[in-house]
């Protein structure tokens, strides 16, 4: 993963966030992905989202597996610890990191090969545990680094660059997430930063696992005619089902009932997700209705995007485990070791 250092010069007119940091402070090294890669747009959205939320950079931990997408944590939030692990293994590593230190904002970057093939089981179980983290699947339908094999998210009939159609049913992370209890599910498009940034900001505040599947065309191996993950196809078939704003906890705002009977969802940290626009009869807090809607529209070949489902009522890994409120890494040793006297007493049980 070569990375090129960017110049650090900052223009004085750059806007500063609450922490006095500019967006440059949330950037990483220069991307080495192909020019036009969707992943770079996602990187830009992540950079912006963290800047807008004004998370202290070192309070972010960014993790990834292996693949083009997994290179990208090097390209945002330089001040955060990063961990580029093994193929598909990011979810358990992030789970362990979160288990040890619940005070950081965890963002995992993965791809469709990483999450839907080799690491599918791990992703599912991280969802089940409701590990508090932002989990981005940069979904392009192909293996880029090994040059263009289909991934498990490739749609039936979608054509490879050579022209062979995929015949196997895709694994759809959104439907999968709905079926196994994911508590925050979004789909977006790398070319739609306006939609993606608020989703990412809401994800930062989410109580548990925030699954964000972002269609991110691979300009080199999957952007041709006949592909269902190309820029053209996605733009033509993008159905923005929901429109959501994220209002951070610090900005006091009275709940407003959105159009079309849409709802406001208060996040665990007090922030609010305002669903400004949702289709009639759609309720982003009703799993079954969301599934029905997706079945109907995806069946027509539409790419349904937006913050699709949200449930703030499920306890996360730590709440389920009744873990100490402070990071386990901060619990002093004298609280962890029962000491010699306790050992002496205990051993009466072993007589």
């Amino acid at each position, binding site marked *: 993963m070569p990375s090129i250092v960017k110049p650090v010069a900052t223009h004085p007119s750059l806007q500063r966030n609450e922490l006095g940091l500019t967006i440059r402070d949330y950037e990483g090294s220069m991307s080495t992905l192909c020019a036009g890669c969707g992943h770079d747009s996602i990187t830009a959205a992540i950079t912006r989202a963290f800047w807008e939320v004004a998370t202290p950079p070192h309070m972010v*931990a960014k993790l990834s597996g292996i693949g083009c997408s997994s290179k990208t944590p090097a390209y945002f939030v330089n001040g*955060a610890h990063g961990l*580029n692990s093994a193929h598909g293994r990011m979810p358990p590593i992030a789970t362990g990191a979160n288990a040890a230190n619940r005070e950081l904002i965890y963002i995992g970057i993965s791809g469709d090969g990483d999450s839907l093939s080799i690491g599918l089981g791990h992703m599912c179980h991280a969802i089940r545990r409701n590990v508090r983290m932002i989990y981005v699947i940069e979904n392009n339908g192909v293996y880029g680094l090994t040059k263009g094999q289909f991934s498990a998210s490739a749609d039936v009939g979608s054509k490879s660059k050579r022209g062979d159609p995929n015949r196997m049913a895709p694994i759809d992370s959104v439907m999968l997430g709905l079926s196994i209890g994911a508590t925050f599910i979004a789909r977006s498009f790398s070319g739609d930063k306006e939609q993606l940034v608020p989703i990412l900001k809401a994800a930062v505040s989410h109580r548990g696992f925030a699954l964000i599947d972002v269609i991110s065309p691979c300009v080199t191996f999957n952007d041709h005619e006949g592909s269902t993950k190309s820029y053209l196809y996605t733009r033509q078939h993008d159905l923005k089902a929901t429109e959501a704003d994220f209002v951070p906890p610090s900005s006091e705002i009275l709940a407003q009932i959105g159009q079309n009977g849409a709802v406001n969802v208060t996040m665990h940290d007090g922030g609010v997700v305002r669903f400004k626009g949702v289709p009639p009869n759609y309720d982003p807090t009703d799993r079954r209705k969301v599934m029905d809607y997706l079945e109907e529209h995806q069946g027509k070949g539409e790419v349904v995007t937006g913050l699709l489902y949200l449930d703030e009522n499920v306890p996360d890994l730590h709440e389920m485990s009744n873990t100490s409120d402070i990071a386990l890494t901060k619990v002093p040793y004298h609280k962890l070791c029962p000491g010699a006297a306790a050992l002496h007493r205990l051993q009466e049980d072993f007589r």
Partner: protein
Amino acid sequence: MRNRVNDFALKLANVNGTGSASANGLLMQAIFRMGIPVSGKNLFPSNIQGLPTWYEIRVNKNGYTARSLDYDLMIAMNSQTYARDIKEVREGGYLLYDSSWPLDPELLRQDVHFMGVPFAQLCNDNFRDPRERILMKNIAYAGTLVAALQVDMEIVAELLEEKYAGKKKLSESNTRALRLGYDYARDHFDLPLPFHLEKMDANSDKILIDGNTAVALGCVYAGATVAAWYPITPSTSAMDAFKVFCEKYRKDPETGKNNFIIIQAEDELAAIGMVIGAAWSGARAFTSTAGPGISLMNELLGFAYYAEIPAVIIDVERVGPSTGMPTRTQQGDLLECAYASHGDTKHILLFPSNPAECFEFAPVAFDLAERFQTPVFLMSDLDIGMNDWVVPRLKWNDAYQPDRGRVLSLEEIEKLPKFQRYTGEDENQVTPRTLPGVHPKASYFTRGSGHTKFGGYTEIPDEYQEVMDRLLKKHQAAAKHVPAPIIQRRPDAIFGIVTLGGCDPAVREALDLLAERGVVGDFMRVRGFPFDSAVESFLAEHDINFVIEQNRDAQLRSLLILETNVSKDKLRSVLVYGGFPLSARHVIDGVLEELGLQNKPVFVAAGRPKGEVPMEE
């Protein structure tokens, strides 16, 4: 009649899932409380109910408690295995069976005393509930053994009382069943048997504990806060025990919150991933597993090695390859763990020999993992992990403080002009690391891909090699920090014996017995890898070193050949790997055969019963 006191072996043949374990444990514990050196080996099947299971108890006043193969008394409670069990009784020994049904005359042996007690009949006559009738048969034979071996009845009563405190009905049933077996035996046989028990005072400073419990306790004391695991025999009880101890000691008294987290992972790939993630964040984290789990963990073990992240792996070894025999013991994971993962990798291994060392080595494992920023394996096995051992009371020094290794504090980071992850090595070739969430200046990108000493990505040969060479030197530096070998020399020794782990008691006993016959050898038990220089010196001192271990491929010997300069001609193997714990007889036979000395039969327990034959009814 020559009485043999506190020196004999029993074998109890049962059907698993019928409740025999509690009766067998009761006997073992009673003998322990009588102050007599004792060991119990549970030879159980990978099954929940219906298959043969055995439990062996060896009593030895001199403290030799390795498994004995000479059974003075067989308690044959499983008709499926009668033929085999009867064959195993030593000449002149005894066999206790359930005479509710006649024994096939074909199975009788002239040189064995048969003692029949109608256990099923007695229990059917005295208990109503069908399940109880089966369960109580076990306590009834325990009652017979109490009479036959002179187990202290007061101690047995006390144990039952402790066990069934507050469960009046159970307590009453157990006491009644015990009495049934006891009275019948008293009325029908001339007891005690020529070999029996007498109180001693060898156990006042000892405890009875299994290695999995001890290692879990060690992890609590070491300050481990994150545990991730996938259930696997024979390590499961380690995590169960960790949970029990954490519930007891790690609930914050003020908040009621847990100062620990245990995650049951979806598989071992995830379990080690969680450990690595937690350790990267700065927690003491561990997993417990067995060989098949290590196979799955290989990928991320290489990541932790190369990215220099601590991890503690408790490997409770079982019989491989593949599924192998999950409930049988072996030392078959040595090479797999020493070099786990693809590419050039080497790991630190610790070899405890009993539960006391499991406890002692747990904090050592965490200290080494953090000091050397690398995975450390605590190599236990099923025999150590799941059998109850009599060991000295565990000790803890309240002055202990965890060695967190080189982790930069906020103040240290602030003083640094720039942080570069893999530079600034100390005498152990360890470079300082930083934890997430401390300071933006300390951030770095942890990667399993080729990297320079600054932590940046590289594909340039020199830059890659520079880091790999330091990792090798770092591994070598650990040799001085792993527990030193235990060495015992005898004057006039003509050979050395090298062993590890749970082989310890059998090998020591064998060396004593061999010395009595004029075949004198020195003893060394290795306790860590990479090998301390004392290991190589010991090997060099002797023309012949027998390497005693429990695997087919002589894995310890291979490691010694690979990692010391000792000529391999000096190393001869004695290998026992069928899945049961080692006995001194295995060692004696192996050594004598290798030395070309004629091997006369050796009886591990001294003397033979020549007493009167207690008559069957």
